[in-house]
């Protein structure tokens, strides 16, 4: 009996003593932290893609809690998630439009390669050495740097051309930063019609090196419901993303070079082997 009592007393005494010491230390060396940051971090997707512009989800959470960032900035999370975070923190958030990446190049035919290239198989490295030997100075180099950069595996390499799968893309913008040719843009996901060309050169020059370049023939502009839907910039037509055309424009316009395409069909491979 005494043994039990003594040991209990001893252990308890030790516990109390240590507790006091730790308690004192915790007081003396207290560090302030906001527990909400951790909760918000847990509510974020945890992909750490950096699409929000912050270094990972934890950093973003800190920025949200401190009021420096809006929860809707996260491109990965569904809109409800931003709402939940806003609700938890008692703040308001803006609705954001979902965007996807569009690689504005369709030059996947072998004719776009001008000369053999021997070197590092990375677009950013190749761009420093003659752009990898492709004929078009503005087109996709095809060494898959954007595909490797994509945290969501949404970019497929097809015959040396990067193709975005709209259903997988969350619009984080990693590929946009990676592409040395500034080929990739973030376009509203609701729009399906895009011009898959980025070369500002004259039509004849473009046709020399690429069969699928936009030659600014204006067929699509004329076929559109209103001329505003397609904008002409020099020798290049662009979709006007603020007043976009309907998907049936592709059929109506019958683009002679097939530079005008639907993102969904482009990704599905419906334009394979184009060469007219």
């Amino acid at each position, binding site marked *: 009996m005494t043994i039990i009592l003594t040991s209990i007393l001893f252990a308890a005494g030790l516990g109390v003593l240590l507790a006091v010491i730790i308690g004192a230390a915790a007081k003396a060396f207290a560090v302030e932290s906001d527990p909400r940051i951790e909760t918000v971090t847990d509510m974020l997707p945890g992909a750490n893609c950096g699409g929000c512009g912050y270094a990972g989800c934890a950093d973003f959470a800190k920025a949200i809690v401190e009021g420096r960032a809006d929860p809707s900035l996260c491109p990965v999370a569904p809109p409800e998630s931003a709402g939940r975070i806003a609700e938890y923190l008692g703040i308001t958030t803006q609705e954001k439009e979902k965007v996807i990446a569009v690689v504005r190049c369709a030059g996947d035919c072998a004719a776009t390669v001008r*000369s053999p290239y*021997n070197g590092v198989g990375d677009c950013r490295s190749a761009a420093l050495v*003659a752009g990898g030997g492709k004929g078009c100075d503005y087109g996709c180099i095809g060494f898959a740097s954007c595909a490797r950069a994509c945290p969501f595996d949404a970019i497929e390499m097809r015959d040396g051309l990067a193709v975005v799968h709209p259903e997988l893309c969350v619009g984080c913008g990693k590929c946009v930063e990676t592409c040395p040719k500034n080929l990739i843009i973030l376009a509203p996901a609701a729009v399906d019609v895009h011009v898959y060309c980025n070369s500002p050169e004259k039509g004849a020059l473009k046709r020399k090196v690429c069969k699928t370049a936009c030659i600014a023939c204006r067929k699509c502009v004329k076929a559109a419901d209103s001329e505003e839907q397609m904008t002409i910039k020099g020798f290049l037509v662009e979709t006007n993303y603020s007043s976009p055309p309907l998907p049936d424009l592709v059929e109506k316009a019958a683009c002679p070079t097939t530079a005008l395409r639907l993102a969904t069909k482009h990704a599905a491979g419906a334009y394979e082997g184009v060469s007219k």
Partner: protein
Amino acid sequence: MTEVETPAIQLPDATKLVISNSPHIRGGETISNIMVHVLVALAPAVAAAVWFFGLHAVRVMALCTIGSMLIEEIWNKCAKRPSSWKDGSAALTGLLLAMNLSAGAPWWICILGSIIAICLGKQLFGGLGYNPFNPALVARVALLIGFPSLMTSWVTPQAGKWLACDALTGATPLGASGAAVASLNDLLIGNVGGCLGETSAIALLIGGIYLLIHKLIKWQVPAAFIGTVAIITGITHHFCPEMTPPALYHVLAGGLMIGAFFMATDIVTSPMTANGALIFGFGCGIITSVIRIWGGYPEGVSFSILFMNALTPLIDRYTIGKPFGYIRIKKEAAQ
């Protein structure tokens, strides 16, 4: 004044002109080139091993070398990697492994050693260039720990007798007793028991000099390695002669020569900088001497080299010199 174009003038086809970064020409050195040089450097030692151990040596060396190359190919096939036996690195690993085995090693030891060396020592880490440890030594140490008695029974050398097949267990020059059992002359020529590559110091030295002349190894490694062993054993012998044989005996006996010239200098697993190589050699020397004099194993060369292999990334990291033009920046910043 205008140019007359004759059809004889032929211009390059622009579509076949290769685009690449500079430089556009290169020196002749290739990986297989280097490996062949090392194999050539090993030739005197191989000849000595065959002279002293006859066809047994040939058998062990053939098994290990061909076995290693085969296993490398099998691995490449399985892992869907490009074939790599032609670069000679597998053959070299196999031959170095054979040099670390006794002439009486059974066939399955040779094959098992090859598997360990190629798979565990090299390919698991991603193949040539990525292995942190010397593959041949990984195999040797694994075998030594797994089959201690098999790996420490030696065949007595019988110079010039090709078919001498009695696997006699002879004394090795580095017994645990701490006494010298062979004459220095025998050690130099190689008329002693031990691994195939531990016999003839002179043959190994010739190979080492060949490598040094061709600048394939850094002189700092063997110099620091052998020098440190000589100094430490020399001092110890001077103060307690009964503890260990004299320095020259230590330098010539056992695997120090092959270790210092062929194993420690392995380019993949040793430091790249000159200062790093010096530190690497010192470390090898200290650990070898400590194990030889005080340790439980009679020979510490392989352990010491592997230990320093593990230290190599650290050595590389902390021996980076200051680049050209760096000192001035420091000075200016200080002002």
